[in-house]
């Protein structure tokens, strides 16, 4: 019997000791891929890049739903009126009473840096990869640089001085400091210029859902416009406008279709048959609006001849009132195959950038030409503006009429031209001069003491 016990304990100890070296080693789950494996294959490397576009489309500043900038900054400025519940974040956007703990303020920030992380991870993955062809690496690197620049660009314009993040290293990123807006612009410019060198002239896929070189230059043109570098703005815009790929759509109803020839870059949908979040967000069929409606002051600016008023604005009337909605995107429901994609960059902006830049440069004829391209397409006669000041003012008006509910153009234009306090001070009861900048998210200030101080007014 003692013998049995001895054998038993020997086996028990030996058996378990033998198996312990590997029992708790587990293999990678089949739902995950190691980072080197992702960047060893063209398809998976592309999937890592396109995920950043999906994230932009679905979360944070560039998303088309109620929380995105198109709607949020429309409310924050004077494009949209709010009809929903007071517990909704949009209520505070509309009243210009944001506080540092506002969820949307935090979600813009967090989603943006998550997208930037994705871009940096792609750059680092590409750098470490020996398997991918150089041509593929170049295009993906260009796209990652472009994405990083784009997201930082909007962050600077909303939050002021921000950290410019160029690595995935959390130890650096968790104690990162803010840099001046000028420095951030310089970084954005550097990334975009690098991207313009790497990105192809053509689109890798037909539907213009991946950015190309023109997109980088279009953003460079906007950057130059925001910083008053008129020569540069004019040159970059010309580079885009000279590309014969892009044509102004004569039919206003075709501008936001996914085949639109004036589109530089648009977000693909998550599934075939889906359309835009924008259409779902803005369109309503009975009044009063369930969530937001177009501001009456804005609607009144569209003259009777302005075709945009009838093609891009929808109207609902019942016995008691009339309400308007943005009708640029018309497909609320799914369709057999997708009809509309959210357009992020389109050539109309380049015309108006060049018009403004030329006016500042003194090329008034050229400026009027560009301005009229947009006016004529809207069914308006050529501009009557004569002086540079008048032309610049006319361009601002066209920007307001052309780009309403598109990624906060109105707010950023008021800000860069210095008109914001005068205009919004009149239009918005809750406006304060410190509202030009968002507060830094409270969670962020708590988590990274180096981000202090908070923006003024919060």
């Amino acid at each position, binding site marked *: 019997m003692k013998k049995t016990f001895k054998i038993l304990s020997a086996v028990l100890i030996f058996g378990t000791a033998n198996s312990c070296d590997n029992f708790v080693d587990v293999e990678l789950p089949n739902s995950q891929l190691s980072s080197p494996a992702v960047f060893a294959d063209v398809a998976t490397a592309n999937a890592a890049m396109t995920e950043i*576009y999906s994230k932009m489309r679905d979360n944070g500043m560039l998303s088309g739903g109620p929380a995105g900038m198109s709607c949020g900054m429309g409310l924050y400025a004077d494009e949209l009126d709010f009809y929903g519940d007071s517990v909704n974040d949009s209520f505070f956007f509309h009243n210009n009473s944001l506080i540092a703990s506002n969820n949307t303020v935090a979600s813009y920030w967090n989603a943006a840096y998550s997208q930037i992380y994705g871009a940096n991870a792609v750059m680092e993955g590409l750098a470490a990869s020996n398997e991918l062809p150089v041509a593929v690496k170049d295009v993906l690197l260009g796209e990652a640089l472009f994405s990083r620049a784009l997201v930082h660009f909007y962050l600077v314009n909303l939050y002021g001085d921000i950290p410019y993040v160029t690595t995935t290293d959390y130890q650096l990123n968790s104690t990162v400091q803010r840099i001046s807006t000028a420095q951030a612009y310089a970084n954005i410019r550097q990334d975009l210029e690098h991207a313009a060198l790497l990105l192809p002239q053509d689109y890798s896929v037909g539907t213009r859902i991946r950015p190309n070189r023109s997109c980088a230059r279009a953003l460079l043109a906007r950057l130059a416009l925001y910083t008053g570098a008129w020569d540069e703005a004019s040159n970059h815009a010309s580079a885009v406008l000279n590309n014969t790929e892009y044509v102004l759509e004569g039919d206003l109803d075709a501008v936001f279709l996914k085949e639109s020839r004036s589109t530089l870059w648009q977000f693909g949908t998550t599934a075939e048959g889906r359309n835009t979040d924008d259409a779902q967000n803005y369109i309503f069929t009975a009044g009063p609006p369930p969530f937001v409606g177009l501001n009456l002051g804005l609607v009144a600016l569209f003259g009777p001849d302005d075709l945009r008023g009838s093609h891009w604005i929808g109207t609902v009337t019942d016995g008691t009132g009339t309400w308007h909605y943005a009708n640029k995107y018309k497909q609320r429901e799914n369709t057999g195959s997708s009809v509309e994609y959210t357009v992020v960059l389109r050539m109309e902006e380049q015309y108006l950038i060049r018009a403004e830049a030329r006016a500042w440069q003194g090329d008034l004829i050229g400026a009027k030409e560009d301005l009229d391209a947009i006016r004529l397409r809207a069914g308006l006669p050529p501009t009557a503006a004569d002086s540079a000041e008048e032309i610049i003012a006319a361009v601002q008006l066209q920007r307001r009429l052309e780009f309403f509910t598109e990624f906060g153009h109105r707010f950023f234009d008021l800000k860069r031209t210095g008109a914001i306090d005068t205009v919004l001070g009149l239009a918005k009861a809750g406006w304060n001069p410190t509202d030009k900048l968002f507060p830094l998210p409270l969670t962020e200030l708590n988590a990274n003491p180096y981000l202090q101080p908070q923006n003024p007014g919060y």
Partner: protein
Amino acid sequence: MKIFSLLGYRHLLSYLIYFSLFLCIPLSHAAAIDDRSDQDRDITVSGFVTFQKMPMQGVSIIAKGSGSSAISDADGRYSLTVRIGEVLVVSFIGFKTIEHPVSGLSSISFELEEAVTALNEVTVNAGYYTVKESQRTGSIAKVSSKDIEKQPVTNFLASIQGRMAGVSVTQESGVAGGGFAIQIRGINSLRRDGNAPLYVIDGVPYSSDPIGSAQTSTVLPNLTSPLTNINPADIESIEILKDADATAIYGSRGANGVVLVTTKKGKAGKTRFSASAASGWGHVTRYMDLMDTQQYLSMRRQAFENDGITEYPADAYDVNGTWDPSRYTDWQKELYGGTSQIRSFQSSVSGGSEHTQFLISGNYHSETTVFPGDFLYRKGDVHFNISHASDDRRFKASLSGSYTSQNNRQPWSDLTPVAITLAPNAPSLYDAAGNLNWENGTFTNPLGALAAGYGTKSGNLVSNMLLSYRLLEGLEFKSSFGFTDLNFTETRTMPSTMYDPAFGVTSASSSLFFNNVQRQSWIVEPQLNYQRAFGRVKTELLLGTTFQNQTGARLVERGFGFASNSLIHNLAAANIHIVYGNEQSVYRYQAFFGRVNLNWEDKYILNATARRDGSSRFGPGRQFATFGAIGAAWVFSKEDGLKDNATFLSFGKLRASYGTTGNDQIGDYQYLDTYSLSGHSYQGMGGLEPTRLFNPNFGWESNTKAEMALETGFLDDRIFLTTAYYTNRSSNQLVGLPLPGTTGFNSLQANLDATVENSGLEMTLRTTNIKGRDFNWTTSFNISFLKNRLVSFPGLESSPYANQYVIGQSVNIRKLFQSTGVDPQTGLYGFTDFNGDGVISAPDDRQVTRDLSPEYFGGLQNSFSYKGLAIDFLFQFVKQQNYSSATVLGFPGAPSNNASEVSHSWQQPGDNAPFQQFSTGLNGDAVVAFYNYLESDRAITDASYIRLKNVAITYELPKKWTGVLGCKLSVQGQNLLLFTKYRGADPEFVSSGFLPPLRVITAGIQLTL
């Protein structure tokens, strides 16, 4: 043998060796038995077992030594064959054990005596071993079926509320299927989700990781927990292991305590049938005191006036005349004031011979909701147990299993937040034709949400087989084989009919969210047990090893767009099908453990336990760690000086323990640098996203626990007092280090060089106040004081926690603004400007701290019995602070209802008012001041309460009326009365604004045969 196939060939081999050994032992030993010299003569002994001259059935009579045994029958008769000189041990729960030597008489009868000192005879389950209450060295709290059965609850965690010292249980939601938060001796880990105890059901670890998904668990404050699968009616006892001595044998998983659930087992004796049925009602315990229409409208009108708006905007439907200003609805009563109908049925059959016992039982429970609409929660369960012992009682086998099926249908969201914020003059829910009323698009009808549904279906199996064989006198080999299988489906349906038809939303926009979770685990734990007395020292040795494997799979999908809403439950009918996630995970765990227990005449007891653990959750080279503890007890009442002389002191024990445990609750694969499918698609391909910020270098969190306790019994243990003091320190904190968003993520798994200490005092007092032939009265009281403290945190100032914690204070503090009340001039809330920069801003001005941990909590139970009538009361109390109801109510002045006290707002300069001036939201300063107020010390109020937690009245009909049939009638109530100064709804919540716990009253009947 399915278990073994899961292991792969490598492990299969070692298991085959174990298993074949296991099978060989009985054979090899059978030969040994034959060699035994037969020096004593066998005789047959028979007789009767009685209590107060009445026959006692089911009493066990075991011969010490040969192990031969018998069970008394219905007449109290027993018979067994023993050797002369052996000692018969006669035992029955609740009675004193009798030991009687066999001298040669063939007829021996026993008269049982009720055990007044029952407590010390009780054995408690310590997981891998059992120990007598009087001899235990560790801290173990126990609630038995006797108390569980008195409570009309569906979640077993509810049944221990207020009954265990050191165990704080908080109900998260009153919605059926909602979860409970449990904390055993405070918060150990800085990670909010790293404080769950280990749950072990009949020896099988049961993962409490949530199974719900954020896409689908929308009606509950937290993700759906799998713990609802455990049926309280199946439970024989719940033991909670608290200190190092008790938990160190669970090593890396014992840091937050261990909850042991032991299910009911069959008992030998005549076959016993039992059937019971109960039916009852549930209601909300308490409503909030909200504004009526007059108060509300006056708030709104004043808000516009304060903001300088004279003409009400078109969308201010509540004040501009669109809605009837004279209308009043109590939305709380309307939207969650209904009655939940509760029914439950149970039946069981148990019995068996002295060698084989069995139990089979079935349960069914259903409850409707307090929300309007047709919603139902159903839970059915079968439980079985078979135990067998060979003739010589050397080989024992036991198989237990429970299968629980749940089906829950609820509205997609909890209506409570709407009910407390909806304007009191909002229009009626239905129009004259009986359809949902949307008041021409001006009213978001809350009942629209009822069209959208939350549904769960789950099947859960927990089974365990235990085989043991006594190799030698005192040496036993045993192994448990456990298996769990959980299959869970949770859906959320969002049909277009939940919206105002005027919006023109069609079924092409309807959605189905679908979350399917499968979780399987197996565990094999071979063990050797050795018991022997060396002179006056009784020794117990335990050696064992654990292999555990858990696999999980989760699929989260969405179907979008349906041809018709009637197809919404069918994912295949969706126009667009999106897969959000399809994850698989494997968790492997291995350990060696051991225990040595030395017992010197039941007077000096030393208990040492150790465990070496390996977990797949850590990176290579960091998978293993060792934990251990030592416990000692001195039963001083057995000292010669006290034993005979002290008539007052009947029992006295001093015990102490010290040791370490660990915590591996960090989720799987956290050390890997990977990409996973995001569930988003672009350009027709699924996106890949970085799964996490990875850190390959994190290791175990360690938790050092020390405890000292005094257990004293007076007057024959009629007064029994246990006082324990403990200090637990968790260091090398394994945390999801919260990171700023600039890192791209919220957190990173890392070890943090911080130490958190929980110390506390726990007292349990049990008294037998009156003990008579017919009338008995016992009282139990427990109270726990606890103090949580962040002991050290090098580099706190420059860490992400700088604005969250303060060294020397609890880790459950909130750093807040200091309110200076309403400024009489501006009419806005004012705060102390700590940094003197003229602006109130976070984090610099949030310098006041409030601790949200309970200061003390406990329960007081009184049980009375008179003949067949038993009455039981339990009061539960908690002393704590928490956020006031202002945090769930809207901004005062906005179109959202508010507490009626808020009417006392500031009106004009010079006013000293408790609440600031109203605004519609246009006054930016007022908005900022209000949100600062919600994060100020004024938003934290006393949330202490005393609750009449449970009342149970049971009447057992006299036998002379019912004959052989036993009949018990009972009325049970849960959460009956609430005494509190808290001004919100119910002060028991984890996140406020959800349906509070319900008051439940049921009446039932139980028949036994």
